[in-house]
C-alpha cells in the first residue's frame, strides 16, 4: 500500500523493528511529554470510576465469559447476525482479507455514485489502510472524529486506538488547523479549536451522501450494530447520509442484546474514564424514512480466524479496544504508539499485530514488553497479555533461531550456552569461576563494571554492574559446612558469618 500516498502509513510489513522504531520517539521530549500527560489524565479518571464499581471483578469475569462463548461458536453467531441484519434490510458482506474488504467498500461507494465519503472513527478501516486506497481510487474520505481530523489534516498517523491524536498537543493542533483551514488568527483555546472543527465538519455532514463506520459491537440476536463515541459526529454520520457502510472485525459480535449491559459498563470506564459514553448509538438494518436507506456491513477476517485455533492466543480476540492496556503500559508511556508500526499499538498491539500478520511481520513486537503485567491487571475482558506475549516469543524464536542471522546473534549464542551450563551444577560452577576471571578484566578499581562487550554493552550504556563477588553463595555454603564439621556439631553459624563478612568491601 505504500506509494499511493505521500505520507507514511502504519504498515507492519514496512515498519522497522520495535527497538529501532522507538529511538526517534525516545529522543522526542515533547512527544513523550504529550503522551505521558494524556495517559495520566485518562488513567486517573479510569481509576476513580473503576474503584466505585464494587462488582468490577465480576463484570470482567462475565465479559470474558461472554467473549469466550462467542469465540467458541463464532461462525454460528456471525451467521445469525447476517440472517437478522439481512431480515432488517441490511446487506452483509464477508471479507477474507484487507484487499477484499477495500474492494467491497469501493464497489458500494461506486454503486452509490459518489466520490466522497464521511467517516466515523474506525481503527479497522485504518488496519486495512482504507483511506489511501480510496484516495488512489479517486474517492475522498473525510474523517469526522476530532482526533482523526487533526491527523488527516496534519498528515499524521494514529498513535492510540481510542485517542488517535494523543501525541499531539493543543499548540500543535492550532498550527495544523490554522495552516490547513486557512485560519491564521486561530487561537489555541479548546473552544476556538472545536469551533473551527465544527465549521469544517458541518459542511461535510450536509453534503456527503455516504458514510463509513466501524463497530464496537455486533449483536447476533438482533442483527444490530453498536458504536460508542464522545463527540456526536458519529451520530451525524449515522443519520444524515443515504448510504452507510459498517466495517467490523468478525470478533466484534456478541450473542445477545443483554450482553451490552456488561460490555458497555466496562468499555466506557476502561476507555475514557466515564460512567457512560456521551453517545451510544444502536441501529438495526434500515428504518424506512429514517436515517440511511442503504445499509451494508462488511465482516472482516484479515487474519483473525487464524488466531481462533490456539487456546492461549484466542483470548486476544476478546479485545473490545478500550486501550486501558496502553494507558497503563510503562513501555507505551515511553514510546507512544508509532513505534509499534501498526494501528494497534501498546500491549494489545504487541500481541494482536503479529498474529494478524501470522508472524510474517512484526516479530519484534512480542519482545516489546518488560512483562510487568500491568496490562492484564486492567484488561476489562481479562486477556492475559503477558502469557500470550511469552507464547508468541516462543513461536518467533522457533521460527528465527536457526536462521543464519539469529544463530550467530550473541544473545542467541549466549542463551544456548547458558542452557548447557544450567544443565549440570558442575558446569554452572565452572562457568561462574570462569566468569569471575573474565570479569576481572572489565571491573574497575571501584569494584564495578562500567563497560561490557557485545550484548552487555546495551546494559552498560546506562547502568553499571557490580563486579562479581569473590565467593559465590554455594561456595560460601560449602565452606561453612566444612568448617562446621571441623568445629563439630551444628554451630556453623559463627564460622559462616566470619566467612561471609570477609568479602564485604
Amino acid at each position: 500500500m505504500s506509494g499511493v500516498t505521500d505520507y507514511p502509513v502504519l504498515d507492519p510489513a514496512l515498519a522497522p523493528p520495535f527497538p529501532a522504531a522507538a529511538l526517534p520517539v525516545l529522543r522526542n521530549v515533547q512527544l513523550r511529554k504529550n503522551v505521558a500527560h494524556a495517559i495520566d489524565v485518562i488513567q486517573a479518571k479510569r481509576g476513580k470510576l473503576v474503584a466505585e464499581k464494587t462488582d468490577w471483578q465480576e463484570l470482567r469475569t462475565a465479559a470474558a465469559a461472554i467473549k469466550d462463548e462467542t469465540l467458541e461458536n463464532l461462525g454460528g453467531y456471525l451467521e445469525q447476525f447476517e440472517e437478522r441484519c439481512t431480515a432488517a434490510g441490511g446487506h452483509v458482506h464477508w471479507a477474507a482479507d484487507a484487499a477484499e474488504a477495500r474492494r467491497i467498500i469501493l464497489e458500494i461507494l461506486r454503486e452509490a455514485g459518489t466520490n466522497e465519503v464521511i467517516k466515523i472513527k474506525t481503527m479497522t478501516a485504518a488496519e486495512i489502510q482504507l483511506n489511501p486506497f480510496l484516495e488512489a481510487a479517486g474517492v475522498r474520505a473525510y474523517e469526522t472524529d476530532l482526533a482523526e481530523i487533526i491527523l488527516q489534516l496534519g498528515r499524521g498517523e494514529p498513535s492510540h486506538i481510542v485517542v488517535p491524536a494523543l501525541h499531539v498537543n493543543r499548540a500543535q493542533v492550532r498550527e495544523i488547523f490554522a495552516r490547513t483551514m486557512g485560519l491564521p488568527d486561530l487561537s489555541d483555546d479548546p473552544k476556538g479549536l472545536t469551533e473551527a472543527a465544527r465549521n469544517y465538519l458541518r459542511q461535510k455532514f450536509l453534503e456527503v451522501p455516504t458514510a463509513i463506520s466501524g463497530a464496537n459491537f455486533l449483536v447476533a440476536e438482533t442483527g444490530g450494530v453498536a458504536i460508542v463515541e464522545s463527540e456526536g459526529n458519529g451520530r451525524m454520520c449515522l443519520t444524515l447520509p443515504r448510504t452507510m457502510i459498517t466495517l467490523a472485525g468478525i470478533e466484534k459480535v456478541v450473542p445477545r442484546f443483554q450482553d451490552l449491559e456488561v460490555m458497555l459498563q466496562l468499555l466506557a470506564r476502561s476507555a475514557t474514564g466515564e460512567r457512560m459514553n456521551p453517545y451510544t448509538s444502536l441501529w438495526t438494518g434500515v428504518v424506512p424514512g429514517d436515517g440511511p436507506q442503504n445499509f451494508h456491513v462488511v465482516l472482516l477476517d484479515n487474519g483473525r480466524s487464524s488466531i481462533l485455533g490456539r487456546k492461549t492466543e484466542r483470548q486476544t480476540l476478546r479485545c473490545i479496544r478500550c486501550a486501558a492496556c496502553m494507558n497503563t503500559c510503562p513501555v507505551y508511556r515511553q514510546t507512544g504508539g508509532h513505534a509499534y508500526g501498526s494501528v494497534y499499538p501498546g500491549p494489545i498491539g504487541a500481541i494482536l499485530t503479529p498474529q494478524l500478520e501470522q508472524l510474517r511481520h512484526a516479530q519484534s513486537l512480542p519482545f516489546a514488553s518488560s512483562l510487568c503485567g500491568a496490562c492484564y491487571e486492567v484488561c476489562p475482558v481479562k486477556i492475559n497479555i503477558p502469557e500470550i506475549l511469552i507464547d508468541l516469543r516462543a513461536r518467533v524464536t522457533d521460527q528465527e533461531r536457526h536462521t543464519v542471522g539469529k544463530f550467530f546473534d550473541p544473545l542467541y549464542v549466549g542463551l544456548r550456552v547458558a542452557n548447557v551450563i544450567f544443565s549440570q551444577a558442575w558446569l554452572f560452577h565452572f562457568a561462574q569461576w570462569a566468569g569471575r576471571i573474565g570479569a576481572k578484566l572489565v571491573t574497575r578499581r571501584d569494584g564495578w563494571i562500567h563497560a561490557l562487550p557485545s550484548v552487555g554493552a546495551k546494559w552498560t550504556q546506562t547502568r553499571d554492574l557490580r563486579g562479581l563477588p569473590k565467593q559465590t553463595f554455594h561456595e560460601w555454603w560449602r565452606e561453612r559446612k566444612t568448617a562446621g564439621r571441623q568445629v563439630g556439631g551444628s554451630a556453623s553459624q559463627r564460622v559462616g558469618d566470619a566467612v561471609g563478612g570477609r568479602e564485604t568491601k
Partner: protein
Amino acid sequence: MSGSMRASLFITCYNDTLYPETGRAVVRLLERLGVEVEFRAGQTCCGQMHANTGFRGEAFSQAKRLVRLYADAEAVVVPSSSCVAMMRDQYPGLFEELGNEALRKDFRALLPRVWELSEFLIDKLGVEDVGAYFPHRVTYHASCHGLRALRLGDRPFRLLNKVRGLELVPLKNLDRCCGFGGTFSVKNGDVSSAMLTVKLEDVLATGAEFCTALDNSCLMHLGGAMHREYAPMKTIHMAQILASTQEKPAEVVG
C-alpha cells in the same frame, strides 16, 4: 513456630553468582527464627530467562531439573519473586505441553511447598517481627512479579514496619515497572533505559538511604543506574534488612 521446620533454599542462579550476601542473609534470618536451612548443591536456574526469551524447550529442561531436585523438600524458600512467579505461572503450561504425567504430578505436589521469602515468613512461619534492627531511611520498590503475579500485597510492609530503627519512606508510582524485564533490558535497551530513568526519579525523590525489594533483578537495574549517576542511595535486598541486628548489622556491599 516450630523449631523442627526445615526449609531448602533455592538461591537462584543470579543471586548465587552476583548477590551471595542475599543468600547469607536468608540463612541467617531463617536460622535465627529456628528454621533448619538446607541447600541443595545441584541447583542452577529456574528457566525464567529462557522462557521469557522464547526458548521454551530449554526452559522446560531447567524446570524439569528443578522439580526433580526439590521433589522431597519440605519447603523451598526463594528470595526472588520473579523466579517463584515463573514456577507458578509458567511451569504449568510448560509441563502441560512438554512434560509427562509423572512430572506433572511431582510438580503439582511441589508447588504448594514453594514460598517466596516474605510469604514464607508471614504465611508459613506466621511472623511479622523477625527481630531485625536497621536504623536507616528505606524505600520499598514493589517488583512487578511480587506485586501482580504473587500478589504479595502488604506482606513486605508488615515485615518492614516491624524492623526497629527503620524509617519507611513511601515510593510514588509504586506499581510502575523499573524497566528491567530480563533480556528486555538488552533487546530493548533504549526503551528499558527510558523506563529506568522515570522510575529512578521517583526512587531518588524519596530521599531514602536505601531502596529495598524482594528481587535483586530490579535492584541490579536500579542500583546500576544509581552507581552510574553517583546517586546518594544504595540498593539492598529485604532479606539483608530482615537479617540485620544491632550486634551484626547488614552487609552493605557496593
